């Protein structure tokens, strides 16, 4: 797998995230974090601890752009911890994980499950940490639901376009 391509995509996705998706305003409940598609689709060839570090760094960079130091870092590290276990559940043939994780390698059903679960976990962590109080928990959950739906649709949509 070509890592320069992965990094190139990360830069493009971050630009779109910061300049487009961070500016979406739908009653304050729609904040899709599409940048995690780079973490989700990254080939699973690296040691787990390196995966965790990459997640932390990607989260930290996002935090600098959002003035929310630590929040995205915590969420990204968490999904990178769960990622190998999720992949292990879905794929019997380890060889396939050397390629990019996508609808092509996992199949549509498994990829949809994998993406949905990790996106929801990531978004819920971010919004709960950002609200930082029990009084806003209802709002944080609505935010999680709406934003996750949009993020999942965008990530899977990207897969369909790329591996049509």
């Amino acid at each position, binding site marked *: 797998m070509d890592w320069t391509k992965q990094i190139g995509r990360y830069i493009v996705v971050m*630009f779109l995230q*910061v*300049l487009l998706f*961070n500016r979406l*305003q739908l*009653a*304050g409940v729609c*904040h899709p974090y599409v940048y995690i598609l780079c973490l989700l689709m990254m080939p699973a060839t690296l040691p*787990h*601890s390196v995966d*965790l*570090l990459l*997640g*932390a760094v990607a*989260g930290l960079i996002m*935090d*600098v*752009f*959002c*003035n*929310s*130091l*630590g*929040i995205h*870092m*915590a969420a990204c*590290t*968490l999904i990178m*911890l769960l990622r190998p276990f999720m992949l292990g559940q879905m794929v019997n043939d380890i060889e396939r994980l050397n390629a990019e994780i996508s609808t092509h390698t996992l199949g549509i059903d498994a990829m949809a499950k994998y993406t949905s679960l990790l996106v929801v976990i990531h978004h819920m962590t971010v919004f709960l*940490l*950002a*609200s*930082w109080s029990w009084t*806003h928990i209802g709002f944080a959950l609505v935010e999680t639901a709406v934003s996750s739906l949009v993020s999942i649709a965008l990530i899977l949509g990207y897969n369909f376009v790329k591996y049509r």
Partner: protein
Amino acid sequence: MQTLLKILARYSNFLVFLFLEVVAFLLIAYYNPYPRSSMLSTANRLVAWEYETADEIGSYITLRQVNAHLAEENARLRNLLAGDSSFNAVYHSAKVVQMTNDKQRNYLTVNRGARDSVYHGMGVRNADGVVGIIRTVGEHYSIVQPLINTASRLSCRFAKNDYIGTLEWDGKNNRYARLADIATHVEVAVGDTIVTSGLSPAFPEGIPVGVITDCKRNPGDSYYTIQVQLSTDYNRLKYVELISNNNRSEIEELNHGLD
């Protein structure tokens, strides 16, 4: 010893995870009240520049120049008008480079920094009224904590009499805030104007804050629940003015003497 090493090797990934999460939570605990570091926030030159450039691309350049010119002229005229000698204010115009207005803790980044003699705690207003207070100062950019941040508190008073209350935001609608600490013996009417009290060193007295749109008196409570529509519309904020208090050092010295 060997068993211990084996256990460590076995759970090394989990230990890495724990370490990273602890770092993340320390960062949250330390930075969540407001962005302290001008490097690791939107006051970072590179980050702010990215926002600013993107903003330029999407707009009419000539219109922007006209706006900037008008904003500067506004600041200059306000300087001429600033007659309140107890405050001795100087206005500088600034452009909003980045902002959020639909979160709990909102911030906006403006294109003035330490080299334009911006300092921590400076007041920020626009043509309509109070915007917020400077929180983090970078070399070229600064971060403003606006009224629409759940951590913000502003001392205000009624324009018609001198009763003083505290303005806070509940994190819901960015057009409305709450005025607390107004006792029920005060006469309050819908439509009353709220202005800055002049008690904080950030703002001179009398800058518009908002207009009362709702006023409730709960049985058994000796304070009103007052809803205020903010003068500043954060949904279309482009230019602001930073208020520099020339008597600041003297005030700080006096306060320091009290500690």
